[in-house]
């Protein structure tokens, strides 16, 4: 079972169109066409990419954005300049719901604005979106060429490598297959595995780091000792050794293994952050107000670390991607086509690294991986602005 499979099917498209109708209708009602159209588009993409899990929340968000545009001039008594004696906060359930939606929409818009304010961050965001769109929508337009055109073992076989042509913009690989189709299909697994590996490592780091900082004493020394122990081992060579012993058919298992070896650095940073944040006056005030431990962790400490964690998550994804490509390049992970890493591996395997005709087959995945990495790094610039209210409000 592939846990990361996306819907990416006509069903998903239909689902996206159905949920996309809602913001569109809403925008017709409020005469906010632009927001409605973009919202419908976002719904279709989300529904197509992740099915119901993506479609429904995207619908809610898109509707919220439309409503927030419509409500922009509506006066809420709560933020009016009236005196206490002359306002009424009574409202119907419908009004309360609409206000909640408008608030959500305003926050989403503020986040998007923050995302776009930083130029390099926005370029990074566009780069990531480019790869996501190509990976999700590409298969609709380009058919995957998995079968070799010619069996090399047959007598008279020759290399079918070819440079770019109008029919095959990126050329043909050594088996005579279209490189472009491999590029379109080959990113999904790598990107999702890296995202998952980064996610697992970050979750491990945040949970263990917070536990070490908040529980202290034996828990702290135990976790820190384990972390230091893992830090002393060079993680990539260890990954190589483990991967050569255990067969990783499943990208899920590979992601978990990466996480198990790469949590310590971030864990130490999170621990230091929590140690510093928990001494803040506002945490003490929350203790005096008896708001509870869970509130203190989730509402007082965590929101102040989220941008830091998000940035580190992206960097971990970056490292994970290189590690996985490295493993594939060395042939230590079962080779499953189509995959960008496998394309490079095949180039090495077939001894065509110096063949100019193999440029399309070799450079395409290399450039794609490098560009994706660059996009990730640039994107972190924006993340900081999205999560920090001080930067978000543009002060």
């Amino acid at each position, binding site marked *: 079972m592939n846990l990361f499979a996306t819907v990416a099917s006509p069903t998903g498209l239909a689902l996206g169109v159905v949920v996309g109708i809602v913001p569109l209708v809403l925008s017709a009602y409020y005469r906010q066409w632009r927001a409605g159209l973009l919202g419908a588009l976002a719904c279709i993409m989300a529904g197509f990419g992740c099915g119901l899990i993506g479609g429904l929340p995207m619908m809610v968000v898109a509707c919220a954005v439309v409503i927030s545009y419509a409500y922009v001039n509506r006066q809420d*008594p*709560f*933020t*009016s*300049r*009236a*005196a*206490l004696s002359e*306002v*009424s*906060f*009574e*409202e119907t359930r419908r009004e*309360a719901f609409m206000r909640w939606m408008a608030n959500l929409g305003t926050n989403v818009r503020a986040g998007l604005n923050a995302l776009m304010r930083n130029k390099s961050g926005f370029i990074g965001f566009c780069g990531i979106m480019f790869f996501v769109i190509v990976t999700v929508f590409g298969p609709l337009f380009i058919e995957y060429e998995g079968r070799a055109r010619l069996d090399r073992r047959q007598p008279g076989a020759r290399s079918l490598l070819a440079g770019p042509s109008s029919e095959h913009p990126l050329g043909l690989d050594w088996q005579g297959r279209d490189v472009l189709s491999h590029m379109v299909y080959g990113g999904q697994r790598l990107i999702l595995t890296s995202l998952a590996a980064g996610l697992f490592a970050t979750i491990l780091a945040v949970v263990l780091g917070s536990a070490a900082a908040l529980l202290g004493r034996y828990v702290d020394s135990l976790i820190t000792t384990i972390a230091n122990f893992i830090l002393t081992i060079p993680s990539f060579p260890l990954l190589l050794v483990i991967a050569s012993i255990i067969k990783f058919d499943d990208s899920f298992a590979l992601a978990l293994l990466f996480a198990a070896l790469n949590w310590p650095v971030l864990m130490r940073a999170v621990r230091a952050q929590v140690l510093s944040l928990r001494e*803040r*006056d*506002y945490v*003490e*005030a*929350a*203790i*005096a*107000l*008896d*708001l*509870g431990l869970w*509130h203190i962790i989730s*509402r*007082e400490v965590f*929101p*102040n670390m989220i941008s830091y964690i998000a940035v580190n998550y992206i960097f971990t994804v970056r490292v994970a991607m290189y590690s996985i490509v490295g493993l594939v390049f060395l042939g230590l992970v079962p080779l499953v086509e189509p995959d960008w890493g496998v394309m490079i591996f095949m180039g090495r395997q077939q001894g065509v690294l110096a063949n100019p005709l193999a440029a399309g087959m070799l450079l395409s995945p290399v450039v794609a991986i490098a560009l994706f990495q660059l996009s990730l790094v640039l994107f972190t610039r924006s993340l900081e602005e999205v999560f920090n*209210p*001080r930067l978000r*409000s543009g*002060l």
Partner: protein
Amino acid sequence: MSTPLLELRDVYRSFEKDRVTIPVLQDINLAVHENEILCIVGESGCGKTTTGKIIAGLNDPSSGSVLIRGRERATFTKEEQSKLRREFQIVHQDPFASLNPAHTIEQILSFPLKRHKLVSDRASLRRRIWELLTLVDLTPPGDIVNKYPHQLSGGQRQRVSIARALTVQPRLIVADEAVSMVDVSIRVGILKMLHQLRAEFGMSIVFITHDLALAKYFAWEGRIAVMYLGRIVEIGRTPDVIGNPAHPYTRALLAAVPEADPDITRRKQPMRLRSDDIPKLTAIPRGCAFHPRCPFFVPGTCDHDVPTLAPSAEHPQEFACTPLQQEGSLQPYAT
């Protein structure tokens, strides 16, 4: 006299640092009554903040007891303690650090209101937030609710922090240097507001400051406790302590307060201390901790016995100075 709201009895508090025990508080005996103002004055590092935290229930004494309405705090059950905790609130010194930068003012005020179910529905929550902001003179409240702390001035933030303390309807507020980081021009406004709130809700206020002039202004109807190196050296009604200080340290502090009138300030004779160095907490002088600096030092007495707090004929307030208690007057120490 009625049972005090809160009483510290023989409180001793020490901290461990690098395996050295630092006694921060020693023999603290203190009572705060309902609706009373108590000022704790002293220089930085004298233990006044630790005292405030023990009063607010954020810190526990190493030994000694804290009595709430006559009952020891440690004997309360867990549920009672969490309720008790809400009755004692603290307003911090630094308004930039005491509000979470990630939340709007509305969120900051609604967390305690929601958590303790102090409001029934959304409309009353919003009304209550408006009421609280009006109480602390942040008007119109509609301009404030959606702002983040960094969009407010220091004074406004301090008012929000007071409003947050008021959400749980406390019986006592510890104001830990609450106005020392606020611009001088708006200090008096905040102090007046605290006075009004005390009158309106019948709360007690423990006002911690290093500024005797502020203490005099704020606690004129209340009491002042002067602390030096972890001990209370003088405590009594404000007019007694300010008008006729007994302990040499209080006298030195008062002599150093600048007056608004420059002529008076120029004519004022600052008290000559024998040393300007404050001893370290790790090496507190034997006997009266103030004796190495005291201009009225009596060898053999001051550096031998720890003085106890007691009033005298001329001084109705309690003070800890053995020569003054025994002789009734102080003689300058001749070197």
